[in-house]
């Protein structure tokens, strides 16, 4: 009786494996599509479903805005720019399948990537097809640790974020710090690096299981160590629940979240009372950008909604791709990569761009935000 469900589960898994196997088999058709005729296609992997689906539209809308603006000015090298999005669901398997789909659709440059865990397996897929990747949001150190030529990060990295966190914790005079992460590539990376910087100050590092509702067991663990500063390095859904449950459990110390948890939804989930005063380490958002009023206005006009986290990075990723293709004089992967490496002083929201030898930003640009009346506002630019 019991064996039947087990067998059937096994065959389900097998079916799933076969399906993903088929996806791999389509590889290699991409190169033929990289012609020098027709529109230049930018591919963008973003979460449109799953737990992080709320972020997807912020990124794709902003990227489309950049594409439209560039096309209105005559396109790139006389060719129009086209954006193709695909859903990575913040899930490694879906991301691999979606990346293969984009490759077969003949994209020339990838400008997507939000969840580090989902972006990681797409690196070799784009790499084999010789497609440069400008990653706007995903920022785990693991993405650049492999030193892949075609991978460029335009968001600050995990180690830069951990440094910002450490600076702020020192500034606050916190004595005992608890780190909480959700065991995903992105989240654990920041926690591990923060622990390296903070050393003995860290009294506990607690991993939680994402996508659950009840974190009371983890919170009991953390609070038993009596921390006066808690740093959550995961995403906003769990972040909101953890903020609420921490306050319900009587925690009165400081709470800080990492950039993945910066979303208006965090305060909504936690309730304004529990979210008030929550700090965040974050790169620039539309709300904290200086002199971006025009850009925000045109975004609002086009989508009838406010831009959100990673809107500006996505917008910049498209502009940077266009710039590199222009400089390279075509869409040949190697030439575009060389052009990206040579970029010096390209104006972006995060400041003038120049890549380090690891293909990351020289300055992560992390700043400290704080929740006031349910919205993240700038607390300290950390400059």
């Amino acid at each position: 009786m019991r064996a039947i469900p087990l067998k059937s589960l096994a065959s389900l898994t097998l079916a799933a494996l076969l399906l993903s196997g088929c996806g791999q088999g389509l590889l290699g058709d991409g190169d033929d599509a990289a012609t020098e005729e027709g529109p230049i296609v930018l591919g963008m992997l973003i979460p449109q479903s799953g737990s992080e689906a709320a972020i997807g539209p912020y990124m794709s809308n902003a990227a489309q805005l950049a594409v439209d603006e560039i096309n209105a000015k005559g396109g790139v090298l006389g060719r129009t720019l086209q954006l193709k999005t695909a859903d990575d669901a913040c899930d490694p398997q879906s991301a691999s399948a979606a990346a293969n789909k984009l490759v077969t659709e003949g994209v020339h440059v990838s400008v997507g990537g939000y969840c580090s865990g989902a972006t990681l397996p797409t690196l070799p897929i784009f790499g084999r097809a010789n497609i440069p990747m400008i990653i706007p949001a995903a920022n785990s150190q693991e993405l650049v640790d492999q030193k892949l030529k075609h991978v460029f990060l335009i968001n600050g990295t995990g180690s830069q974020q951990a440094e910002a966190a450490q600076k702020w914790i020192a500034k606050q005079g916190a004595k005992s710090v608890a780190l909480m992460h959700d065991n995903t590539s992105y989240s654990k990376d920041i926690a591990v690096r923060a622990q390296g910087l903070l050393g003995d100050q860290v009294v506990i590092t607690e991993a939680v299981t994402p996508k659950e509702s009840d974190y009371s067991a983890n919170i009991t663990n953390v609070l038993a160590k009596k921390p006066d500063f808690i740093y959550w390095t995961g995403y906003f859904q769990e972040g909101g629940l953890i903020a609420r449950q921490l306050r319900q459990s009587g925690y009165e110390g400081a709470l800080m979240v990492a950039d993945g948890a910066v979303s208006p939804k965090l305060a909504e989930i936690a309730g304004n009372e529990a979210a008030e005063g929550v700090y965040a380490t974050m790169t620039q958002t539309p709300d904290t950008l200086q002199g971006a009023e025009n850009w925000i206005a045109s975004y609002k006009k086009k989508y009838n909604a406010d831009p959100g986290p990673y809107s500006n990075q996505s917008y910049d990723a498209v502009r940077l791709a266009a710039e590199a293709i222009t400089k390279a004089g075509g869409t040949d992967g190697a030439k575009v990569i060389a052009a990206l490496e040579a970029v010096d002083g390209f104006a972006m929201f995060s400041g003038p761009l120049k890549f380090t030898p690891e293909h990351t930003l020289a300055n992560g640009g992390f700043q400290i935000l704080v929740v006031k009346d349910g919205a993240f506002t700038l607390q300290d630019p950390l400059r």
Partner: protein
Amino acid sequence: MTQLVWNGLFVGSFYALVALGYSMVYGIIKLLNFAHGDLYMLGAFTGFAVLGAAGGVPSSLSLPLLLGVLLATMAITGLAGVALERVAYRPLRRAPRLSLLITAVGASFALEYGMRAVAGADPRVYPVRLGGTPLEILGARLTPQQLVLIAVAVVFMIGLNLLVTRTREGRAMRAIALDPRTSALMGIDVNAVISRTFFLGSALAGAAGVMAGAYYGKIDFLMGFLIGLKAFTAAVIGGIGNIPGTMLGGLLLGLLESFGTFWLGGEWRDVFAFGVLILFLTVRPTGLLGERVTERV
């Protein structure tokens, strides 16, 4: 220590409520209803919609209002469960077990992504929240609202157990679990009883969904997946098909998770909880109270 026990019991009572539906359906038609967790999600969203329709209510009334919403939601999710059985499972009742299982997986995806199409992928937040000031009881912090939720869960479980063991309806369910064909020959309307079983199980899952929504606040279209798996596990530990066993199984799983987190840390919690379960099932494959293999509901 009492805090750990309390945390475990609280989470466990949610597992138990959801697990009951699994257990009842499996008991009667030997179907692992993988869409059951999604009925929990459906309940949470139905409650959200009903609350939205009820409009702004002063917070002093939030508890009675929530109870009303709870009952309305149970009726709606119960009917959804009946419809699910009618559309997806009844036509396949004589088909091989595998086809039924795949249908259940399909129904689960259909519910999840159907809800995403209707309500969007963004998580929603309940307009009425059960916050409450925590009390210290025996060294554990708990809120009166948590006590109310557990009380509601216990009332449902006891009520269900009475219904199954003491009423004509329950006798019919147990008869069908033993032998559907003979039951039909004895004049029991098998289809109607199975429909009502689905109604009850789904209504309980819906109730758990509303309670989770009101307590934790956040709901999303994938929220049923993980708890569905956990509830299934709880049902197996308790002895699938056995109602008191299933309740115990839910509470035990909650406690295992709570103590696993405490002893080994968050990243080892599931390894610990499920490791214990594997050990337990090798010693006692029928589950905690699963000895009455011949009579299941």
